[in-house]
């Protein structure tokens, strides 16, 4: 049996993830399967706004939940590791997006959709968290 007591902020983060993000992803999946997202029903006006909001809501909710976790976390070391990882991620994401954006502008490089910025940020952040944990192991 592990004697470690986890951080309450982490528990709250996990609870919020489970009870807010997961249902939003399920809603997103249902909307996607029913074809709202894939223009089978050609959503327009208020329905299109609803679909766009529903599609982006899990990621926006995740950003808010991470922010709440950072505000509530008492363990300065854990907070510092996450903040450092986020700063590395934003640095790398901005460097790549600026470089690719200028290539698009000046050298007719293929257009990269803006949605890829979040995935790039998350990928770099996960690598940075791993690297930081390994560094402070």
């Amino acid at each position, binding site marked *: 049996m592990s004697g470690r007591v986890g951080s309450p902020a982490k528990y709250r983060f996990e609870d919020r993830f489970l009870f807010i993000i997961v249902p939003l992803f399920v809603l997103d999946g249902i909307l996607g399967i029913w074809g709202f*997202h894939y223009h089978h029903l050609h*959503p327009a006006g208020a329905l*299109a*706004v609803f*679909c*766009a*909001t529903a*599609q*982006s809501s899990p*990621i*926006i909710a995740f*950003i*808010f939940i*991470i*922010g709440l976790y*950072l505000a509530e976390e008492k363990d300065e070391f854990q907070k510092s590791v996450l*903040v450092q990882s*986020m*700063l590395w*991620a*934003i*640095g790398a*994401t*901005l*460097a790549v*997006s*600026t*470089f*690719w*954006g*200028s*290539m*698009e*502008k*000046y*050298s*007719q*490089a293929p257009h*990269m*959709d*803006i*949605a890829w*910025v*979040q995935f790039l*940020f998350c990928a770099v952040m996960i690598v940075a968290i791993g690297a930081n944990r390994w560094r402070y192991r």
Partner: protein
Amino acid sequence: MEDRMLFIGMPLLVANIALAIWGIGYRHLHAAGAYLPAILFALLGVAFIVIFGLYLKEEQDEFQRDLWVQALLWGIGATLTVITLWGSLVEFELAKGLKLIFVFPLFMLITCIARLVLKLRYR
């Protein structure tokens, strides 16, 4: 940071402006030559990121560093929120596509506003 901005950032900015005025950056160059303005333009952004990263690493005043880190975190959160929402609006043809090159200025704008608000909060 000021020295680095003055001796690295400023010359890159001047080179960028010179290229823009001479029109080299506006699709007059072809093939390999077109990479020069692209790389020069990106180099300015990358140099700023590296210089700012070095500043955060070297800053001894914990309070000042904390203010900047808080502002950067607000910048990250708000930028990613705007991008996510904008991307979805584009998918449903409710907005025009946002170019990748505007991500950095958007982030800078939000971070500067957040820094100002934090400065007012702790004045």
